[in-house]
């Protein structure tokens, strides 16, 4: 296969990201001044010293905003720059511009913000106790759990915690903005959703949307982090350009990006689960406390996905799940691949692990026994069609030779005292569609030029998932040309309006369909022209692979000739396409409906080795059976699965987002401070951390709901497989101490592993060092900066 042009540009270093683009003469570089504490009142902003630095310096604050100081889309609770109070540590308060980035950053340091700190809420439970919610809670219910618990042989309850996760898109957030013709604004934004940026810029500058053009080229990674939250940086750059009269480029450095932007939501959850004597789970209840951060952002949509996936891949007849969006003084947590589903999956899997420990039943058998089956009804009332959980599980058992794998692990553990091995199988059932109904739509614009070449524009943003490749393949198929004829253009609000973000794994599903709709209408016109040129009935003409076929035989009419003949007949060679996912409905009042176009199924087995002396571990191997439908391009889809799996593994085991005062981290004197705000303190998977052996197999496609040409979305579902890594390490730990309480606190860092091993031993054998900590004296807390 010939490599896509984008990939060639990537490997030769020619791809231009925001910071690589040439900018007009006179462009000012921007930097932001971030708030220094979790919450406070602004008393005065003194820019004197900053302005004295260089004549080019400009300092811009909320009072310079000509329009509405508002960038919140779901709920208007998000100011671009604070007017009176800042709401989290790391919030942009002031925008500084200067002729070089170094000067702008120095100016930002020199601006002084006089303020007084106000009481802050950091932890989600603290917020719940104070009734601080972003929006009212939501509950989904099926059957009668209270009643069902009475019939259960085992009823367990517990608390589960999962930490946040920083996106670490390699390209940080940024935008370039320019005022054109005195009244129009042009923004190049690193965003997954150009329309969102367009709306924010229009609001802030008090312009109609038709005066704001937003263009998105390639992104250097996004993963949800540039879905809603790119709007802030696009709007700040536009504000800077509007106020200064100069083009402005804002490109965050890593530390500012990590401090200022939202991440995956931390959760803590209480569950209750009941199972009968035979291992059938009869009832499940859970309360999810989502740490939403300081604004609404996408929290409600994310919470709804947690609730939709509350029972994981399991059929449970009696369910009651409630989610709380807790408002805290932390950055506004936002979309991150998986979008609330991983947090839901983790809770049910912890509950099943606890059931296994209590009942003595094998955890894998329990998981298998309770899988969703064809036409099972979910707790939100959607029947599952084409359900493949058992197919995937069966194939995984076969492929990993699970029974003998277990034996080998048990034998190893019986012999080895320094190392223990563990393995876990996790099934996945993941709904595809935006959980917010109105977002399931897309547009396209297709031109066939006179030489027969094809240009396709859609709302899809290319960020490495090769959505443009999929769109090109789909468009070529629908037009009947070779894919080499098709060029997919960057996304701008000029060509395709009212786009939805490229997110929720739907980028290819929606946008390729919109492109196909447009291509089909052009194809129809061309076919009619070919029929009239050949003097045959339209039904006898086919256009395929650049050839014009009459009764299945190639004729001497070429694609180029047909195109030019069509043009000369004054027939339109362009078309706009529009697609809205059919069959979706949801009633928020009853919490019933069919919110997903289809589900993606799969199962993963992860194997791990734990060093029980040192508390460290390695992930040895992963085997994944995945329901891909008809894959458009296997290498691309495998790349998505491996990448999502690594992110899931990182979230489950390694990535330790620590906010002082949240999730068990002591607040000390700096509540709300992000302690892991650099890549030297926040570690994500590197090549050593991910297993050298990852085997991926696609389930053979089967009839059932899917997307274009029988394909299925692939972006998010495989992230869930990473959670199997958590349970593989836990499995190894349980071989040391089978009766220890289940650890349900993610990420499972080496510290937690050692603590588990330590607590598992008799306290006499290895005395604890509990009690008062030795005084640290005047030692600075951050003693371990290398």
């Amino acid at each position: 296969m010939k490599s896509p042009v984008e990939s060639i540009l990537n490997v030769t270093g020619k791809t231009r990201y925001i910071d690589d683009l040439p900018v007009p003469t006179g462009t000012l570089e921007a930097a932001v001044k971030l708030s220094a504490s979790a919450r406070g009142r602004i008393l005065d902003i003194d820019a004197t010293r900053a302005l004295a630095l260089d004549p080019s310096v400009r300092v811009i604050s909320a009072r310079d905003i000509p329009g509405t100081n508002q960038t919140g889309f779901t709920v208007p609770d998000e100011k671009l720059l604070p007017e009176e109070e800042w709401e989290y540590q790391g919030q942009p308060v002031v925008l500084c511009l200067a002729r070089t980035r170094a000067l702008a950053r120095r100016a930002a340091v020199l601006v002084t913000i006089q303020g007084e700190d106000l009481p802050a809420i950091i932890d989600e439970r603290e917020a719940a106790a104070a009734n601080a919610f972003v929006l009212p809670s939501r509950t989904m219910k099926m059957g009668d759990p209270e009643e069902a618990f009475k019939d259960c042989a085992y009823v367990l309850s517990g608390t589960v915690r999962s930490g946040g996760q920083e996106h670490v898109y390699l390209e940080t957030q940024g935008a370039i903005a320019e005022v054109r013709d005195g009244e129009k604004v042009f923004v190049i934004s690193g965003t997954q959703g150009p329309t969102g940026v367009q709306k924010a810029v229009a609001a802030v500058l008090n312009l109609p949307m038709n005066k704001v053009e937003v263009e998105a080229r390639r992104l250097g990674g996004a993963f949800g982090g540039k879905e809603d939250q790119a709007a802030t940086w696009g709007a700040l750059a536009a504000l800077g350009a509007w106020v200064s009269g100069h083009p402005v480029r804002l490109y965050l450095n890593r530390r500012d990006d990590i401090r200022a932007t939202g991440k995956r939501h931390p959760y803590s959850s209480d569950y209750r689960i009941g199972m009968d004597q035979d291992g059938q789970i009869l009832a499940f209840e859970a309360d999810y406390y989502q740490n939403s951060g300081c604004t609404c952002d996408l929290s409600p949509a994310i919470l709804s996905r947690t609730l939709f996936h509350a029972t994981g891949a399991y059929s449970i007849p009696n369910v009651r799940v409630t989610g709380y969006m807790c408002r805290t003084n932390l950055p506004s947590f936002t979309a991150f691949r998986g979008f609330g589903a991983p947090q839901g999956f983790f809770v049910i899997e912890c509950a099943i692990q606890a059931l296994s420990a209590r009942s003595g039943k094998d955890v894998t058998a329990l998981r298998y026994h309770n899988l969703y089956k064809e036409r099972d009804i979910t707790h939100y009332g959607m029947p599952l069609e084409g359900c493949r959980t058992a197919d995937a599980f069966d194939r995984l058992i076969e492929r990993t030779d699970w029974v003998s794998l277990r034996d080998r692990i048990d034998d190893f553990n019986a012999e080895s005292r320094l190392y223990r091995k563990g393995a876990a199988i996790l099934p996945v059932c993941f709904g595809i569609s935006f959980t917010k109904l109105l977002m399931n739509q897309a547009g396209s614009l297709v031109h066939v030029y006179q030489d027969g070449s094809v240009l396709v524009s859609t709302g899809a943003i290319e960020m490495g998932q090769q959505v443009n490749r999929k769109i090109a393949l789909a468009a070529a198929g629908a037009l009947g040309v070779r894919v080499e004829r098709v060029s997919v253009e960057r996304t701008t609000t000029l060509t395709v309006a009212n786009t939805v973000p490229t997110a929720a794994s739907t980028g290819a599903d929606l946008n390729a369909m919109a492109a196909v709709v447009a291509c089909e209408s052009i194809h129809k016109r061309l076919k009619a022209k070919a029929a009239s040129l050949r003097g045959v009935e339209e039904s006898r003409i086919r256009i395929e692979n650049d050839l014009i076929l009459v009764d299945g035989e190639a004729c001497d009419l070429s694609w180029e000739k047909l195109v030019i003949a069509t043009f000369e007949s004054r027939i339109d060679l362009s078309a706009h396409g529009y697609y809205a996912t059919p069959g979706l409905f949801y009633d928020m009042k009853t919490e019933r409906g069919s919110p997903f176009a289809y589900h993606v199924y799969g199962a993963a087995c992860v194997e791990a080795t734990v060093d029980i002396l040192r508390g460290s571990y390695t992930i040895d191997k992963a085997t994944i059976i995945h329901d891909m439908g008809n894959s458009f391009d296997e290498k691309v889809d495998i790349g998505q699965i491996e990448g999502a799996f690594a992110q899931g593994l990182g979230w489950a085991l390694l990535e330790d987002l620590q906010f002082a005062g949240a999730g068990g981290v002591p607040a000390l004197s700096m509540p709300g401070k992000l302690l892991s705000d650099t890549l030297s303190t926040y570690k994500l998977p590197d090549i050593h951390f991910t297993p050298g052996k990852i085997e991926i197999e696609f389930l053979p496609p089967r009839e059932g709901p899917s997307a274009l040409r029988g394909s299925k979305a692939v972006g998010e579902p495989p992230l869930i497989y990473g959670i199997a890594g958590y349970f593989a390490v836990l499995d190894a730990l349980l071989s040391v101490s089978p009766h220890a309480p289940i650890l349900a606190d993610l990420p499972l860092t080496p510290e937690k592993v050692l603590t588990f091993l330590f607590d598992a031993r008799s306290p006499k054998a290895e005395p604890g060092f509990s009690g008062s900590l030795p005084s640290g004296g005047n030692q600075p807390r951050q003693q371990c900066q290398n």
Partner: protein
Amino acid sequence: MKKNISFVANDRPVNVEVWPGSPALDFIRGQLGLTGTKEGCREGDCGACAVLLGSMERDGLVHYRTAPSCLLAMGELDHHHLLTIEGLSSAAATSAAAAGADKGITPVMSAFLEENASQCGFCSPGFIISLTGWLMESAILDVAGAVVAVEGNLCRCTGYGAIRRAAEALVSKFASLPPPGPERLRVLVGARVIPQSVLDFLATREIPAARTDGEDTREAQGGSAQVARPGNASPSREISATQGGTLPSPGGSIAPETDRRKSILLLGGGTDWYVRNPEPEETDDCFLLDLLPPFHRIARVADREGHPRIEIGEATTIREFFASPLLRTAVPGLENFEQDFASSLIRNRATVGGNVCNASPVADMTAILIGLGATVTVGTPGAAAYDASAPETGNGVSIADASPLSTRTFPLEKLFKGYKSLDLNEGEIVEAFGIVPLTNSDRHVERFNFEKIAKRRSLDIAAVNTACRIAVDSEGTILRARLSAGGVGPTPLYLEKASTFLEGKKLSKEVVEDAADIAVSETCPISDVRGSAEYRKRLLRRLIIAHFIRLFPDESLVQELLP
């Protein structure tokens, strides 16, 4: 103060006035317009800004080493050959078959394309630089080595599967390259992996007649305190301009005795200093210690009693430290701990002295050196030491020659006064470290081990690290023992009580566990982002036990010590 430097950027000679301390990344992107080199984190943790630097090294050959350009001082480029992704791409641009967008795809890039190893693409140039550097310099070309070559490169999209497969493809394609050196470079130019400009650079640097054999030659010179200058056989000064190392020397800006009023930056490799000073302001002067012969050397010498000692110049890079035949002989198994230290990218730049002088309580090299019982030599070098071009005469310059003023030598652990605070007088800098080689006889064995636990195994700062050097006689009696620990107090620690306790004792479960308990009692860790105080104490105790399990794997002791 700006200085004139000249270097080759891909195929173009560059002659420019710069402040030597300014970061190379900004110059590469801003002044040279080579935007294929990306800024991802500006602290050496992502590898997106990796470049290749070619220079004559002390073996008399031109070598190319990868470096994170965000942590690279512009002064380091002087007389070097800088290769960026654009330069690599030019290797294949003239290929007859190539046209349009396909132009400029080298075999490494092609492997990435074949395996779909580039998704968003932001990290791709860095990975390709690292793998190209590995093809140029790695003695053994296997997948494990390729993985180590990219351990300092982060990719958030692929999960590394496709990158691993690309590396596998390169291993099979380039299985039979000549050993690292000019011949291999010629083969790689022929294969369009690297550009012609490499051969051009080689031609300007090669001096086949006057090659030295590096360290081993200098070992033969041992017996006096004379220190060999690296590359003293070279007619050009570039020969001394090899790798730099980590951090700034003491505090980053200690003025030499000659000129106290100026603000002077003394940099090792800069790999810590630039993390704290990502956009540094110009100083009056700036010296890059690794370019200065007195500070960049490893030599075997003898003390007054004739006992052998290895001297390690403070600007020795971490890579050179672990690769040194002298050190590998002196401390068998030392190379096993190389991968505990940062990433291959950082090891090419970071220096031994920089890691020590940064005074982090958890510096890996400091723990290793204190465990080995290293001494440190500090001094007030004269102006001559800061002149990279001056001492061309003679067969090596001793520290004494370069340092007319006094020097002091003392146990390394005594260098640390408090948190990030060194016991140095005004104008004094750390110059070198000394290690006494491990000894073995019919009657005793002496062994060394290093333990480190961090959240991530590679390129992460430890929660706790510890080193152990121990000599045991054939009866199992401990003759000498030294334990060090990092991350458990405001300074790197020599665990004196535990070490003393062990001496004269017979190896047993009880003795080891008592020593571990004593070790813990000597520490006062605090809680931070890398671990709680409680965890650090528990971990240190476990790691002390781990020393004995690793060092005496054949004894029945191991079974008793396991948890």
